[in-house]
């Protein structure tokens, strides 16, 4: 009989992660919280960045010239990943909590991934249309 070494967690965090990894819904719960915190932080940054509107045209336009560079477009797309996962999974949570969703929550989670990935792929084309096609297509 093969020797199977005992899998002892090295700390609290690894114990939590090992407890979670068996269930897809648990991962959705963790990802929903991480994406939620990320979006809240982004909301603060977004409000701060757009406050340049009250400083006049020149300052706003200077800031927007920076935001339309490639690194910021990548950040914008990654933000889209967080938004879409949080939004689709949020609908799933509402259906589970308020309706009959608990009976088919795993199918709903599959729909979250399929819907989210489809929208995010479309967003990739929208955001990077100039880099992909050399000119705007939308």
């Amino acid at each position: 009989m093969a020797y199977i070494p005992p899998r002892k967690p090295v700390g609290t965090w690894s114990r939590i992660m090992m407890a979670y990894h068996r269930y897809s819904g648990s991962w959705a719960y963790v990802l929903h919280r991480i994406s939620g915190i990320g979006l809240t932080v982004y909301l603060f940054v977004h409000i701060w960045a757009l406050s340049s509107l009250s400083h006049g045209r020149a300052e706003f336009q200077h800031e927007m010239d920076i935001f339309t560079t490639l690194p910021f477009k990548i950040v914008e797309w990654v933000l889209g990943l967080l938004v879409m996962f949080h939004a689709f999974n949020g609908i799933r949570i509402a259906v589970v909590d308020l309706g009959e969703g608990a009976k088919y929550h795993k199918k709903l989670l599959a729909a979250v991934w399929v819907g989210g990935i489809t929208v995010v792929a479309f967003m990739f084309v929208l955001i990077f249309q100039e880099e992909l096609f050399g000119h705007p297509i939308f």
Partner: protein
Amino acid sequence: MEQSPKILRSYSKGRKSGAPSWMWQRITGLALVILTVGHYIWMHYTPESGHSFDTTADRLANPVFRGMYIGFITIGMYHGVQGCWNVIRDFKFRPWITYTLIGSLVIAALVFLGIGYNTVLAFDPTKP
């Protein structure tokens, strides 16, 4: 879904349990799905649509848009702060750490809401 009205009524009574906040988190969340996805598509479907002073000025000249932005940041901030509040509380820190984190969060949210309202309401398209 037929049990939803009953759930809504029962949760509206539990004022001290945090249940109304739980329900509001769902309601604001569903509103934000529409607002955020709509905002994301509308403002970012071309580089010009969300990053031009003139396009933004045209939009902010419309009182409906101004109202929508004010509602959007208010609902978004409520939902975000409420969500972070829940995460902080679930970690069961020492009470002084919990109070410091939640207090800082609420103060920061109020300050940034003020900045957001000022940006929308005091916007002057003629400022160079």
